[in-house]
């Protein structure tokens, strides 16, 4: 129990703390620490206790803490040492937890912030962590926290969200086509998982909101891979074909070291195109399970696109010249892929068949027309996003046309 700090006629009586029958082996040090915190360095408190041996415990505690101790008739007199302040001299303040506060997110987060929560005070001498992505303008998005919150709210459990027992029976050729499209989508989603995951490990934790977005993006992709695989295997199929050209296209995404450029190629162009594909599958897939999967995955991918767009809009607002770098990246990627065949024939044909739903000339004609419409939708989507990023129309059209034929 703590008695009041009393002042009588200019005479300060020491603070008296009675730890009663609480030992320092049971938490009494908290009462003493609290008391010491209320007196200045060099100030004194008096402690009394009842538990047998409390004096020995107090001696040990004061010795370890660096406080002077003397026993008198009225109790144990502890003189507060300044040693504890020493640990925090030269400490670093790391912004604020609330990103809205002024100075909350530093333009350059330092290696010595390490893994500390943003806003924490970090002791001098803490180890330095080499996070490559440590500059705000390279990674930041003002609405990252909102996008993360939306993502958390929109998470879905494949077991609950998809009716895996919905009845359907497809011709073998169409089921094969579904398996091929799923094979292709899994491959693409592997890229969409690995790219943010790699950046996640390189991102300074100071940019907590961006870290959270990337983390949940990775979780989204893991879920997509799971449900695509599950759909693929529903009728006893194994994954089908993976082409060198498709993999070469995805490899250029993994090879891109710049966060913004990778986000542009993967999220804005690639996943943006993928949203069109998923919407197509939602509308035209021949079975209810594929349609449900496509609808749910499309929602997630749209968020990924939104994050990429928001980040790029912020960066381009501050660095308009960065547009040239983005344009060059599309051209370089196009050059790198010029020797490949683009979207594999099997996937293209499978999409037609899948949209046809049956193996008849009339149905195939419908499927073919739908895939053509998909191609137009994808190209328009790319163009629209490029225009929103401030590219001139002529450039935007050229870049939209140069985008990989692999879709992603």
């Amino acid at each position, binding site marked *: 129990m703590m008695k009041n700090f009393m002042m009588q006629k200019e005479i300060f009586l020491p603070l008296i703390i009675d730890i009663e029958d609480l030992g320092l*082996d049971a938490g009494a040090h908290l009462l003493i620490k609290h008391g010491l915190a209320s007196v200045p360095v060099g100030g004194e408190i008096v402690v009394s206790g009842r538990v047998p*041996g409390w004096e*020995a415990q107090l001696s*040990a*505690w004061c*010795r370890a803490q660096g406080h002077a101790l003397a026993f008198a008739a009225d109790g144990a007199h502890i003189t507060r040492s300044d040693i504890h302040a*020493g640990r925090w001299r030269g400490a670093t303040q790391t912004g604020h937890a609330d990103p809205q506060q002024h100075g909350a997110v530093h333009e350059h987060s330092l290696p010595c912030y390490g893994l500390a929560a943003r806003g924490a005070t970090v002791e001098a*001498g803490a180890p330095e962590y080499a996070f490559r992505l440590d500059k705000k303008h390279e990674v930041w998005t003002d609405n990252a926290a909102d996008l993360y919150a939306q993502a958390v709210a929109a998470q879905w459990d494949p077991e609950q969200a998809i009716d895996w027992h919905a009845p359907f029976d497809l011709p073998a050729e169409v089921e094969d086509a579904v398996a091929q499209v799923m094979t292709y989508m899994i491959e693409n989603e592997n890229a969409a998982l690995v790219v943010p995951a790699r950046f996640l490990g390189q991102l300074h934790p100071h940019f907590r909101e961006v870290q959270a977005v990337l983390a949940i993006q990775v979780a989204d992709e893991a879920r997509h891979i799971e449900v695509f695989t599950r759909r693929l295997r529903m009728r006893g199929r194994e994954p089908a074909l993976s082409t060198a050209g498709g993999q070469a296209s995805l490899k250029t995404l993994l090879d891109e070291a710049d966060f913004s450029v990778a986000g542009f190629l993967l999220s804005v162009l690639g996943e943006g195109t993928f949203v069109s594909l998923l919407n197509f599958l939602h509308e035209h897939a021949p079975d209810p399970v594929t349609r449900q999967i496509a609808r749910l995955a499309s929602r997630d991918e749209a968020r990924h696109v939104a994050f990429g767009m928001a980040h790029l809009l912020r960066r381009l607002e501050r660095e308009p010249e960065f547009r040239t770098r983005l344009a060059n990246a599309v051209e370089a990627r196009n050059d790198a892929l010029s020797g490949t065949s683009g979207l594999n024939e099997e996937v293209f044909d499978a999409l037609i068949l899948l949209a046809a739903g049956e193996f008849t000339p009339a149905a195939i004609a419908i499927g073919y027309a739908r895939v053509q419409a998909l191609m137009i939708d994808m190209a328009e989507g790319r163009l629209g996003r490029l225009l929103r990023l401030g590219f001139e129309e002529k450039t935007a059209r050229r870049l939209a046309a140069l985008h990989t034929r692999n879709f992603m």
Partner: protein
Amino acid sequence: MTRPLIMGAVAYAPKVVTIWEGFKEYFRRHDFEFDFILYSNYERQVEAQFDGTLDIAWNSPLAWVRAQRMALARGQTVRAVAMRDTDCDLTSVLVVRSDSAVVASGGLSGLHGKTIGFGALDSPQANLIPRDHLRTQGLLAGRDYTARRFDLLSGKHGDHIGGERDAAQALMAGEIDAAWMIDGNHLAFSREGVLPAGATRIVARTGAYDHCNFTASPDAPTDAVDRFVGLLSDMAWDDPDVRPLLELEGLKAWRSGRTSGYALLARAVDDEKFYDAKGNILAADYRY
């Protein structure tokens, strides 16, 4: 190259290498040539202070007592030149389970016929000084109580607190009736959960004694020793470069050495017949 000041230390735990490598680096930053030799036990370290191997040694209190006696027998002098703030005025406490009938009052008569846990044979804090304390209360091992030793890493003078921890665990397991430990270890074992809060009670406490010190050998170069002590005193807790070393070594500041805190141990060493007046080892069952 200037001959470095050579210090001896006992490797009672792997961290000892980290500590002294860190000190070596610190001294080198201040243009002071320093090196160290690690020993597996204090006995050989103290002996090396008299054959020209060591200029200085980081000695346990028992090693200090021996060094002092060996020096005296040779007509030489050793000096305690520095110690940690946490080396001053330690006490050991005898702990029982809360439900024990043993009480602090009545000259500890409740300990008659009981089994008491001690640390290593060569531990000043958990064997020699506690036995001395009980002797002053009229209690002798074998006659009045049964002593059970928790002997870990002999030759390290109890620096390894494992013996005290084993005794504390045996106490909670009901294998012994009481256990000795340094006052600070009573708190440490409580933090670790080895001794649940409120599950134990202190029934006896030894007088205050001092712990380790840097002992300068008889022939140590005075200037170098003075510079060594000066650099130790300069090690500030505020300095993030040296704070980790101080934390590892368990201190906040270095103090000048004092020899006033070893009387209890010297008496215990005689009573327990651990060393003779010349520093020869008497304890027959002591292996190191």
